């Protein structure tokens, strides 16, 4: 007798479960070893709490009423629940706070695309540590986590969430035109971006700046290349990334970071540094994160913050694929 489960969900059988547990144990060891205590929060929260994260209405895909008529929602990620936890339970405690988690999260999916409605995330949140030092600590933990997961070829893309909003404001764009251009940047539709810029009256050097910056990615040399664009928004973003680069360079050994002026993330609470994780073995992004200095304020605490989350199932796929390819030959 076959009893179906909803598309985008899955059962895990013992063999895979053992692999997953090993991966989780290795990650928790890294997190705990760096002072990030593991926490769990309810999968169900009040919708009003999750809504504080902002974003494009994707704070919760599954909402329903409880027996008392309260609107509840399944969390779509862990950053907002942990912000709530810190504000509620650690409001008076001395910062910084360091927490890690391995938890299920829930998102809407497009049909027949292999997307998961319920997926497992592993990540950390560092709350109360300012930019540069805080960002670098988070990158440090992420690199150690990728090492522990055996993803030798994984790369961390590092960008700046404020760059284009600031730059386009500097060019004098109004809210509506600005959003239209940002949407093209986020989709990385360069043909559409050129059209939108033209429609918004951005031409010549300014339009070229926007297009060139969105394609600028690579080692620390791209920071110098970005400086050639004459705009204070660019200078500020370069300065922030430069600080991170300096701090990264002062550690022993190399690093996995690639600077990327085209990086955009769609969650509503990021500012300053943002990051994404890629592995050549899989075509999809393995995880991401960044700074969200404004988020804690929405919960009544004026603390800067940063963190990342990895999609554990995708990490597992990348692990298997890297092993198959012979341990990251490229």
């Amino acid at each position: 007798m076959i009893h179906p489960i909803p598309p985008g969900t899955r059962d895990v059988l013992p063999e895979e479960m053992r692999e997953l547990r090993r991966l989780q144990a290795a990650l928790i060891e890294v997190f705990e070893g760096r002072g990030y205590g593991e926490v769990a929060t309810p999968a169900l929260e009040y919708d009003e709490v999750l809504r504080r994260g902002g974003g494009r209405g994707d704070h919760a895909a599954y909402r329903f009423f409880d027996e008392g008529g309260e609107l509840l929602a399944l969390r779509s990620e862990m950053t907002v629940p942990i912000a709530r936890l810190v504000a509620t339970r650690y409001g008076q405690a001395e910062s910084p706070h360091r927490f890690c988690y391995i938890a299920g999260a829930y998102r809407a999916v497009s049909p027949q695309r292999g997307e998961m409605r319920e997926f497992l995330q592993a990540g950390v949140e560092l709350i109360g540590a300012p930019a540069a030092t805080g960002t670098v600590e988070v990158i440090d933990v992420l690199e150690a986590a990728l090492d522990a997961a055996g993803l030798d070829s994984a790369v961390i893309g590092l960008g700046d969430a404020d760059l284009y909003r600031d730059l386009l404001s500097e060019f004098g764009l109004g809210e509506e035109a600005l959003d239209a251009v940002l949407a093209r940047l986020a989709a990385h539709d360069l043909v559409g971006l050129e059209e939108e810029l033209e429609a918004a009256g951005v031409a010549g050097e300014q339009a070229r700046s926007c297009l060139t910056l969105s394609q600028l990615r690579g080692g620390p040399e791209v920071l110098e290349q970005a400086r050639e664009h004459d705009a204070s928004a660019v200078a500020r973003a370069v300065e922030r990334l430069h600080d991170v680069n300096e701090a990264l360079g002062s550690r022993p050994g190399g690093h996995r970071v690639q600077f990327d002026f085209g990086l955009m993330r769609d969650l509503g609470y990021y500012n300053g540094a943002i990051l994404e994780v890629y592995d050549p073995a899989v075509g999809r992004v393995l995880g991401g994160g960044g700074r969200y200095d404004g988020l804690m304020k929405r919960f009544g605490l004026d603390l800067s913050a940063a963190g990342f989350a990895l999609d554990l199932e995708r990490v597992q796929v990348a692990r298997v694929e890297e092993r198959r390819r012979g341990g990251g030959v490229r």
Partner: protein
Amino acid sequence: MSEPLKLAVPRGALFGETLDVLDGAGVDTSELRGDSRSLIFETAGMTLVTMRPSDVPTYVEAGAADVGITGKDVLLEQSDRPVYELLDLGFGRCRMVLAGRTGSDQLDDAERSVGAMRIATKYPRIAERYFESTGRQIELIEVKGSVELAPLVGLGDGIVDLVATGRTLEENELEVREEIVECTARFVANRVAHKLRAAEIDELTEKLREASRR
């Protein structure tokens, strides 16, 4: 040393001009021009994978192909697939249009008398978005093959379809009523490949840009 870059090449209407622009960019396409039944071709420094244009976003999104060429019509219809659109190649120019029977008031009549036009199309999402954005109601009928047939035998009042020369419409006594969007061939990239193989993809983009402007 990394694997060669995989490029998805669309078979069908865009095939010839795609090969021409690739030649112009220094990619050897001579094997693809033969009558080989193979789907995968190895050239110096690049693997060319041939497929239906509508499959290109699927392969590129998943990273099974690093980059690809396909029509804007395909990208618009599959706009939920996040691929990076890097370049307008300019060829394969055609228009997405609303067409009705020549000299007939059927489309307008349908809107007036039953409040919705019945539209047959192979592009349900483009059609749906277009009518939604112009504030009109339609009843959508998705077909897979020759959509010109639909209004002739009473399946729908009009069609939304891609038109290059307009000859097919004419031969079936249909005429363009509204133009929805102009479409050309586009160069697209997988988002992870775009980050991890930046130099190779940027170089190919520049070569294609020059070749497509010649």
